[in-house]
């Protein structure tokens, strides 16, 4: 296997590399989806795979998401490890039935006889000026579905590590790729790829003592920026990157909030019924007596994703995060 110098690399390149390494290591890994072969995907995340591994290993399918995921189920039944690309978040919905009733449940239905090691890659979220149906944050749907793992990277290294772990997992993984981080760069060295940690561990991206920002995926860089800006206001914010929504790393999150006594959950997904409610509720259950203020949430509005020219008003930004931090009842302190 030739080594490509990818230093610094984009998140998209790290994802490509993860699939490439997985395919090289394990002939049962198959990539499939719309335009993933010859074109290399509309985001070029599968670039070069068909060329390197042939069209049987990286396959342009007919245009039908339920068919793509449904045939992937059959392939997994026969021992393959399909890595399915859904072209955009909202275009995964036609495959919802297959995902919920089969992918998530097959292991359980068959008492473990038929696990489905399928990775469903879903580019998600906004911030790239996409027209309607191209910017949904659909993680709440997947989180509410037992049987699925749900992960999402925020860094180039995690993109590689988490995707390798997802493909290696014997359980189905919904792998949410933050579209607006595809071109984010990092000096990640592909020749020493991060050790592949098991799925399910959050990480503290920035230590702080005043309050914890709990976040994931596209909102991680925003929270880090907010934490920098918060220093001016005298707040030293901790930022926890969940990385995995299912399983959820209660230990890391609760430890942080117990330390800081205050927390804000930040995500782009709509607030109502979104991941933040679950996160805030579980943190509160675990840290009630350490909390100086209710866990607050900064989220997208409860509206259909806006048109490109208005999306900046929808997306949780630094100011909105700082506003929420400001509402964490600091008076009580003094």
């Amino acid at each position, binding site marked *: 296997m030739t080594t490509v110098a990818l230093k610094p690399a984009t998140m998209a390149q790290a994802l490509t590399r993860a699939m490439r390494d997985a395919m090289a290591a394990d002939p049962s890994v198959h990539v499939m989806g719309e335009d993933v072969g010859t074109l290399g995907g509309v985001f070029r995340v599968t670039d070069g795979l068909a060329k390197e591994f042939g069209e049987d290993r990286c396959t342009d399918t007919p245009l039908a998401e339920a068919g793509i995921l449904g*045939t992937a*189920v059959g392939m997994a039944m026969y021992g393959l490890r399909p890595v399915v690309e859904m072209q955009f978040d909202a275009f995964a919905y036609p495959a919802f039935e297959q995902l919920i009733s089969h992918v998530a449940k097959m*292991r359980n239905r*068959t008492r473990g006889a*038929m696990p489905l090691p399928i990775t469903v890659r879903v580019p998600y979220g906004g911030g790239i000026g996409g027209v309607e149906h191209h910017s949904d944050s659909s993680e709440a749907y997947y989180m509410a579905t037992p049987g699925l793992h749900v992960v999402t990277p925020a860094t180039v290294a995690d993109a590689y590590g988490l995707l390798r772990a997802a493909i290696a997992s014997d359980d189905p993984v919904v792998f949410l790729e933050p579209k607006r981080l595809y071109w984010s760069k990092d000096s990640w060295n592909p020749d020493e790829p991060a050790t592949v940690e098991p799925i399910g561990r959050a990480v503290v991206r920035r230590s702080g003592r005043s309050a914890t920002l709990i976040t994931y995926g596209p909102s991680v860089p925003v929270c880090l920026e907010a934490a920098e800006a918060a220093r001016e206001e005298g707040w030293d914010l901790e930022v926890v990157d969940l990385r995995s929504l299912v399983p959820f790393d209660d230990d890391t999150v609760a430890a942080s909030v117990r330390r800081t006594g205050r927390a804000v959950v930040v995500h782009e997904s709509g607030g109502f019924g979104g991941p933040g409610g679950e996160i805030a509720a579980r943190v509160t259950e675990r840290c009630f007596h350490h909390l100086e203020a209710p866990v607050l949430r900064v989220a997208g509005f409860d509206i259909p994703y806006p048109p490109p020219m208005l999306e900046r008003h929808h997306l949780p930004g630094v100011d909105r995060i700082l506003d929420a931090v400001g509402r964490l009842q600091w008076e009580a302190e003094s």
Partner: protein
Amino acid sequence: MTVMEQRGAYRPSPPPAWQPRTDPAPLLPDAEPYRVLGTEAAAQADPELLRRLYAQLVRGRRYNAQATALTKQGRLAVYPSSTGQEACEVAAALALEDRDWLFPSYRDTLAAVARGLDPVQALTLLRGDWHTGYDPHEHRVAPLCTPLATQLPHAVGLAHAARLKGDDVVALAIVGDGGTSEGDFHEALNFAAVWQAPVVFLVQNNGFAISVPLAKQTAAPSLAHKAVGYGMPGRLVDGNDAAAVHEVLTAAVRHAREGGGPTLVEAVTYRVEAHTNADDATRYRGDAEVETWRGHDPIALLEHELTERGLIDEAGIRAARDAAETMAADLRERMNQDPVLDPMDLFAHVYAEPTPQLREQQDQLRAELQAEGEQR
């Protein structure tokens, strides 16, 4: 840039992309359902095969009756009977080799049983002690599928995977007339044809989707006519003629095995009983129609052929019936035992390893069960 610069050249040919592709003619079904029994074709049929089919039909009928009886005794939560459709169920099972795969719908426990599955395991779902009651790999029978038509893409994917691995495996998937209306039917057939996957799709057109008759389900000349739209052969067969269904399915399986790709087979049959024991069929159809179909009974058709041609005698018929009764008695007895259940199984197979969250819940239930036990 002006319009004229943008304009292409004139050439009065047909559109260049268009070429006469697959010839549609051989893909179209015959005008009448193919029949063997009671026709000249019957003379060609292998007597041994006919006797095997007969024994299985008799067994299948008895199985259906027994399962329905078990619902009345509260031993099955629900049973969707395939009485009257045994020819399809049995022929589907017998058309396959051991290494092949069967993808049944929720009504097709009989096909699974005819393929060798233990009836008790086949009925687990309907008894309610677990979902899939068997290891699908053991007899290469996919889980009974309740969401209609959703197992069809699975069959395509499995057959495709087997072919990629170089294995000689054909998948046969069963779906109802109602199920053909689902998007998954369409997507599965299209993928199968594009990939030339070794799959056979058997549509059991039994006239109804619960209460909805075929005329409200489709306006097509026949369901088999859908095949040409995917570029695969469509075949129409008398679904109550076990010899005919077996012949057509066997040919389709062979075609698939030889690399010819998928086939769609429509078997015209009838659901003689209600949708399930919980259904009241008198609400949507008359007795006359049912009676007409009882006159086209799959067992009677085959028995007549066998008897007429001296291929079976009273003893042979009795042997088939006795074997069926033995199966039924055994099934009845075993189904009358309460299954042993462990509530902790609820957490055992959600993931390879329970998540920390599930472990907490597991502990909770364990504690509850312990407390319950102590109370008793």
